[in-house]
Each structure stands twice: as structure tokens, then as C-alpha cells.
């Protein structure tokens, strides 16, 4: 569904991504693993058009979307949930959701506010609360829900478990599995191996802006040396 090839990206003169390539098959959850500063967020941003790739292709269902603007990529069917959540703090929960609203995609059940409150019951209880007065976990749910309002077919999720209590991480993992069951493909950036294990089918390891390893999630868990080399602190 998503195929990234030879992707490079720069911040100013700093070369951040170098020849990054991987695939996200339809209906699967692929996790991008790597230490702090490895380039996970930059990869997601480059796919989303929020960092302009300096080389390479981003094929979404066969069309190269590299170099397009973020809003066009969103309209093509990608949804992006940023690491910092970026909730509109002045807007209420309901208004935040309405910013994300886009017409439904074919083949997937369209998201409505009610369905999202079903997915994240905590949100349903605070529809009129301004985003600025929500806890980190609630903001994370709202950020995901807001993106889902755009009815994406592929979801880019940047560290949804960051800073959440273990119980909330479990609930978040449940939600992600539910999304997968709905037929959504998901590209997840993570550092939390527990969370990655709970949701991902495949794993891609990135270090210093290069892909170092790619394979099944189960495979990775059995591969002590790869884990030691790229992921342990």
C-alpha cells in the first residue's frame, strides 16, 4: 500500500535521512523502531510532506506522492498523528474533531464523532472541554481521533505511547488493534518495544537516518543481537 524508496531528507544542511526504503502492506501494522534522534519522526514527516524529501519516492497505492503538499497527501488518504499531539488548545474536543473532518473513503466504514467516542470513551465525556485542559493521554486520544475524522486509509502514528501510564498504553494498544481490524494500514514510530510487540506485524529498524534491519515483529524479538545493537540503551 505504501512503498518508500531511496528517501532522503535534510534540515538545512544536516543530512537526516539517507536512502530510506521500506513497505507497509495493506491492512498491516508496521513499526519503525529506533533510538532517540534516529530519524523516525522525520521519516513520517517526509512521507506526509511536512518535511520536503530531497530525493526518493513515496508510492501510495502506486502513485508517487513525494514532493506534494501535506494537505494533498492527507486528501489522498494518509492520516498523520504527530508525536507532540498538536491539539488545538483553544478549541473544544468537538471543534478539534471538526477540523479533521473529511469525506469518507471508499471501502472503509466512515468515522463519525459517535464511533470515535466509542473507540475512546474518555473523549465522549468531555466534548465541550477545550483541548488545552486535557491530560496528556486524553490529548493523545483526541489527536488520533481528529486524524481519523479524515477517514484515512493509512495512518502514520508517531509514538502514541510516549509519556503514558502503563494502563493507558494497554488501552491505546487495544485501540490500535481495533483500527487494524477495521482494515486500516498503520505505520507506527515507536521506542516502546512492549507496545510495538502488542500491535505490529512487521518491524523496520532505523539508526542515524538509515534502515538497518527489516523483518517480522516476532523475528525481531527472537533476534537478541539485532536488538542489542540498535535498540537497547
Amino acid at each position, binding site marked *: 500500500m505504501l512503498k518508500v524508496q531511496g528517501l532522503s531528507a535534510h534540515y538545512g544542511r544536516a543530512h537526516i535521512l539517507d536512502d530510506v526504503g521500506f513497505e507497509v502492506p495493506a491492512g498491516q501494522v508496521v513499526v519503525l523502531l529506533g533510538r532517540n534522534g534516529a530519524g523516525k519522526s522525520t521519516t513520517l514527516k517526509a512521507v506526509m510532506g511536512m518535511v*520536503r524529501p530531497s530525493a526518493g519516492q513515496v508510492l501510495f497505492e502506486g502513485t508517487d506522492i513525494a514532493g506534494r503538499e501535506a494537505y494533498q497527501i*492527507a486528501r489522498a488518504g494518509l492520516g498523520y498523528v504527530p508525536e507532540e499531539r498538536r491539539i488545538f488548545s483553544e478549541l473544544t474536543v468537538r471543534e478539534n474533531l471538526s477540523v479533521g473532518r473529511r469525506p469518507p473513503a471508499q471501502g472503509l466504514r466512515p468515522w463519525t464523532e459517535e464511533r470515535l467516542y466509542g473507540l475512546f470513551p474518555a473523549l465522549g465525556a468531555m466534548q465541550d472541554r477545550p483541548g488545552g485542559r486535557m491530560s496528556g493521554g486524553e490529548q493523545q486520544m483526541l489527536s488520533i481521533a481528529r486524524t481519523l475524522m479524515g477517514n484515512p486509509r493509512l495512518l502514520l502514528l508517531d509514538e502514541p505511547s510516549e509519556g503514558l501510564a502503563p494502563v493507558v498504553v494497554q488501552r491505546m494498544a487495544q485501540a490500535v488493534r481495533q483500527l487494524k481490524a477495521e482494515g486500516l494500514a498503520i505505520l507506527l514510530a515507536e521506542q516502546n518495544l512492549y507496545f510495538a510487540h502488542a500491535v505490529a506485524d512487521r518491524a523496520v529498524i532505523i539508526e542515524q537516518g538509515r534502515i538497518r534491519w527489516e523483518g517480522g515483529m516476532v523475528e525481531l524479538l527472537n533476534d537478541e543481537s539485532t536488538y542489542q545493537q540498535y535498540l537497547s540503551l
Partner: protein
Amino acid sequence: MENLLLQGLNGLASASSLFLVASGLTVIFGVTRIVNFAHGSLYMLGAYLAFSIVTSLPRGHAGFWGGVVLAALAVGVIGALLEMLLLRRIYRAPELFQLLATFGVVLVVQDVALLVWGAQDLLGPRAPGLRGSVELLGLRFPLYELVLIGIGPVVLGLLLLLFKRTRWGTLVRAATQDREMVGALGVNQRWLFTSVFFLGSLLAGLAGALQLPRESVNLHMDLATITEVFVVVVVGGLGSLPGAALAALLIGELHAFGILIFPKITLVLVFLVMAVVLVVRPRGLFGKAQVAQAAVASVAEPVLGRAPAQLKWLGFFALVVAVAAPPFLAGDYALIVLTDMAIAVLFAASLHFIMGPGGMASFGHAAYFGIGAYGAALLTKWFAAPMVPALLAAPFCAGLAGVLFGFFCVRLSGVYSAMLTLAFAQIAWSVAFQWVELTGGDNGVLGVWPDPWATKLNFYWLALGCSVMGTLALRRIALSPFGYALRAQRDNTLRAEAIGINAFEMRWVAFVLAAGFAGVAGGLFAFAKGSVFPTALDIPRSVDALLMVLLGGVQTLAGPLLGALAFTGLHEQLVRATDYWRLVLGGVILLLVLAFPQGLAGAVRQWWEGRRHG
């Protein structure tokens, strides 16, 4: 007592029109982050267009109000076109470049208005049915003013509804906070920006059109309005509608009562208020912190680097010519222009120092130029000081002002800091303008002649020497450890503070240095002209300096040099060649902005480096 009531009502009426203009500006700024200097020009266009439309329509209610609405709509369309044809192309350019573009628009609109409507003030028709006045507690108050008082709150209410109750309004509020995220959610920002520009311009046009029955339409409406509206928007907090409303009320009433109590202080009163508000609340009354904007935008800003060696040789060669050639030039005129250029280069370099390495924009740098000029001139006038001591005193006067004003300005950031510099500059200006006993007011300080040894040629060499040494000194400082620390705090204040850089002190020292060098330029200016007038520190002079720096490009050290030379040369030639020099200059600026979004020096360097590597 009755008088107070009348003044209160007058204050409400002007608050109402101020709010209309300010609401447009604040909405535009909120979403696009553009400090639109051309907003006053749109207001002026609204008044002119309303004049033409209303006078060509049949008399009566439909003619008048229809004309007002049509004019407002037309200005809205002009604003939308401005966004689509000009600003849209440079959203990714450094923020200050957009400012430059809007300056270009101001110049162009001035001359277009002059061409179409002529230089004479135009008196519009009165509003039909509202010519009379009403009795309030035994006093007569014009009916039209009462209607105006009502229009402000009605527009505020409609705008609040629009922003609260429609999806468009929700999108605009979201974009005001984090426009990149709104884009990532699939909203086409272009369309949003254009529509916001349409609405904001429409409000400016409406405000202008509504002035028709109140005052004459003239070519000074643009700058007079824009400064006052900036004050309102900044005092209220950028991007906040209720803030703009409250600030408009405050400023309108202060004006009305200020005239009653202290006629002399009215010119500064609004700026004093702004200074006080910003010192107490650095983001205005209702302003909020901004989410850091997209990485995409900041990536476009290259680092400040050293020029390649060949360029240095070129500069050196140009300098040799500048020193050696003038004795062989015929005529004083060339020497006068060259002296002006030397002064302009130093002035621009001093502003560049706080803008480039310091990372602070100043809208009021003329204050230090002017204070240097007045310092030198007043010493000769009152103490019969010879030229050299007077010149030496200039940077100290300007530096002292820098110490005082800078202390407040460098605490703030971004537009707020820039606006506070403007406020201080206006305060300095009105002191020069109104303290007639000391400065001669509008008549200026005359007879500031150089010593006998300083012939036109010698004085030119003196100016050139000061300019070159001053510019080199600033360059030295920018590349010294102090300069690196200064840039470190510019790029990331928190990180810089973490490694022990005191950002406040750095910025303050930089500000004072820049003020001092501007003072040198000002002192030279006083003796070059033989006189000093309040125009030495007025807003147009600050704008000139900004134009020079922005034209040249903020990112390179050579930028202000090229910008000052290009600007002074162009300006000089154009003023001599045509009455419509603003149109040409503005047009050139717009073309340059579109063609070289990295400034002249940046473009030259890019071409140079491209040639070497490519």
C-alpha cells in the same frame, strides 16, 4: 461635564472605526503571521473607492450605503488578489521578507492613488438622512457618529459568530494556533489564507469607506492609520478579536480625553500606552503564545557565513574606487550623493546587526539615527561645539537611548519587540517635534555646518572613513565570540541559556551597540545636511533602513551594504527622474522579492557559489 460626555462619545466613534481596521489586521496576522504594512493602504483604497462609487451612484440611501458596501467588497477582492499573486509565493521565505513585500505594496498603492485621484484632499458626500445631529442632555451630537458607534459592536458580534459558529471559523481559529497541523489534516491553507485576506481587507475597506462623511480622503491616510492600528492590535494581543476591541476602546477614549487634558501629549499618548502595556504584558492584553511554526519555514533561513575571498577582493576594489575616484568627479552633487550613501551604509549595517546576528526586528531604528543627529546638532547650537566633539558625542547620545529603550525592547520577542521599538521611536519623534524650545520643533535645528577644513570632499572622506570602520567593526563583532553567542541565543534561547549564555544581556548589549553606530550615522547626517528636522527620526526613515536591510538580505553580512547602496542610488535617481518614484521603487521591490526571496546579497552569493560548484 457635558463636554466630557461629548468627548466620550467622540472617543467611542473613533474606537469603532479603529476596531474595524484593527479586526481585519489581527485576523490576517493570526492566520498568516504576516505583519501587513499594506493594511493601511487597503483602508485608504476603501475611502477612495467609496468616494468614486458613491459620487457616481444616484444620491440617496441606496446610493450611499450601496457604494460603501461595494467599496468594501472591492477592497476585499484586492486583498485576496494581493494574497494570491504576491504573498502566496513567499510564505516559505523568511518572515521579514513578507514585510518587505508589503512595504512595496504601500509604495505602489500611494502612487496609484495619486495617479487616479490626484494629490488634492477629496471631500465626500454626507450620509443621506444622517446629516443632522441629536440632542443628548442638551448637547448636539452628530447622528452619523452615533451610527458609527453602533457599527463597531455589530461587526464584532458578527465576527465572533462567524468564528464560533461556522466550520470556516473553526478552521481559522485552529490555523491561528498551528497552521501546519491544519494542513496535515487535509485543509488547503491557500484557500484559507486567501479567504482570510479577503475578509480582513474587506474590513479595512469598510472602515475606510465609512470615513467618507467624517473626514476628507487623502494620501496620508495609509501610514497614519497603519501605525495607530498596529498599536491597537499589539496592545490587544496579536490575533485576538476581543483584545483588538478592548484596545481600540482604550486608545479611542485616551485620544479623546487626552486632547482635553494635555493637548501636547496626544501625539505620544498612544505609544506611551503601548509601551506600558507591553512592559507589563509582553503579549498584549489578550495575546497568547504561539506554537512554534513549521520546520519547513525555518529551513529556508540559511546561516550567516563569511563571504568567499573573491567577493572580499571585489569589495576591497570597490572601496579603493570609492576613496580615489571622487576628486576627479565633477560637481558637488555627486559628492553629496556619495556622502549620503556612506551614511546609509552605516545606518543599514547597524540595523542589520540587531536583525541578522541578533535576530530582533526593529521598526524604530531611526530613533537612534535621529538622536545621534540631534545630539550633535544641539551641541553645536547651544554650546557652539566644533564638529569633531559633536560627532563624537552622537554615538553616546544614541547609545544612552539604546540603553534605556533597549532594556524594555529586548525582553520581548518577535513582532511585539519590533512594535515596542516603534513606540519608543515615536516617543522620541514627538519630543523632537514638540519640545520647540529645545529642538525648534518642526523648524528643526539649523546652521549645523562642518568645520572649515571639512570641504565637501573632505567631509565625504570623513563619512566614508566612519562608515567603513563602523561597518568593519560591526562585522568583527558579529564574527567574534560575542557574535557567536548572540546568534546562539537567536537560534535557540533555551539551549543558549543552558550553556550559560545570558540571552537578555547579549541582546541588550547588541541593541546598544547598534544604537551607537546608528548614532554615528546620524551625527554625520546632521553635518552633511547642515540641519536636522524631526524627519530624521520619523517612521519613513525607520522604514527606509528596513528596506535597505531587507533588500540586501538579512542572512549575509554584505547584505545591508548592497541594500543601502541599491536603495539610496535607486531612490536618488528615481526622485530626480519621475514624480511617481514610489510606484517604480515599490514595483522594483516587489519584483526583487519575487525573483530573489533571499535578498540581493544572498542571490549574488548563490549565483557565485553555483558557478563555482556547478
